[in-house]
């Protein structure tokens, strides 16, 4: 599964992304399960709001963290996210 660069990405309505105060972590919640996220994964997923494409997500994060060259890491993570059903495109 790969990310279509032309299409926007949105977080799956079948999952919930939320900050867990007790764990001091963002987590993905779904039936019978929970995935704990590190900070960078959470930052990427928060931008999957159905308005941005892959390129825009990369640009926004590079700007936010004043860095460059994030495209490979972000693409790799989003492919995992797509495979797991955490995000959707169309």
């Amino acid at each position: 599964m790969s990310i279509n660069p032309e299409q926007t990405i949105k977080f799956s309505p079948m999952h919930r992304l939320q900050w867990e105060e007790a764990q001091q972590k963002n987590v993905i919640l779904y039936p019978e399960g929970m995935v704990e996220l590190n900070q960078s994964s959470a930052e990427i997923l928060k931008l999957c709001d159905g308005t941005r494409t892959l390129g825009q997500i990369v640009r926004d994060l590079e700007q936010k963290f004043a860095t460059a060259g994030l495209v490979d890491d972000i693409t790799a993570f989003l492919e995992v996210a797509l495979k797991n059903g955490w995000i959707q495109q169309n």
Partner: protein
Amino acid sequence: MAGSNKINITPPRWLLAELTYACPLQCPYCANPIDYAKHQSELDTDDWKRVLTQARKMGAVQLGFSGGEPLTRKDLPELVKHARDLGYYSNLITSGYGLTEEKIVQLKDVGLDHIQVSIQASSQELNDHLAGTESFQHKKDVAHLIKKHGYPMVLCVVIHRENIHQMPQILEMAEELGADYLELANTQYYGWAHANRDLLLPTKEQFEQAEQIAQAFKEKVAGKMKIYYVVPDFYEDRPKACMNGWGTTFLTIAPDGVALPCHSARELPGLDCPNVKDYSIEQIWNESKAFNFFRGFEWMKEPCSSCDEKEKDFGGCRCQAYLLSGDMYAADPVCSKSPNHHVIQEAIDSAKASALADNEKPLIFRNSKNSRLLS
């Protein structure tokens, strides 16, 4: 932890709220205790709200509203709303009996996240026989409505000797109903299932055949449907890591407010399980005798205490050790290292003999009359 008395207590993550023992169904493998009819009292709405608030504060995030049939509680929408406000990810674990489209919409509006609906078999005749209630068509209608209103849906089918031959049809049914998750729960032999074990336990050949069919289907539906396969531990060499370790992750609150480290723990002697009417969840989780009883490894006997796999499976299930060997400190007899392991083969042989007998005794259905007779 061996050699140290200080046990690191992790906070609860999963809360199972058994709102009631009342249920219109009579499944003969129900996980409720055999003597449930003795425990008639139920927590009120404020008690449940306090429990939800306190457990959430400690870090519980996955919440199951269960029973009995949780829909029999009139205050369910109020509790679901309270749970959503607190940030729980909440699940309604239901037979589907009594669930209407209006209720499905209402629960969605107050923040219910997903629904797990049980179906007993893939045919009306067997489903209605096992449930002790005419419910098959209604359950299927309910499943379609759950999907229509955008919930993630878990379809749960408990597998045993009466329905294991329907595995291909059960899988087809799950696909037709649009289940996002299919839980194929091989019966665990506690409570009512323990009482009916001779009639429910399939043969090893039946298990293996069914598992193969399920495995092939899993690959076919990958990406569309996830399958949770609850292993039939009687045919394993090693016990399950029950509850992910005692008092580490799971908290069950029974209808009358008794707090349990697992939903079967009521059957164990001498735990003095505390009630949420008397103590806070924090006191119960951290300080109570019951929740500390099997924490860590100090309580273990041989062969568990020197076993190099003890940190993986925690000696297996305490309730199963007690039910099958009479000793709740013993290794789970499922383990091939257990000196009591022979009881598993005896159970398998006994079930096989029962299946071949001309006059097989009938299933004991889960209802208040039988509960009083048996306890």
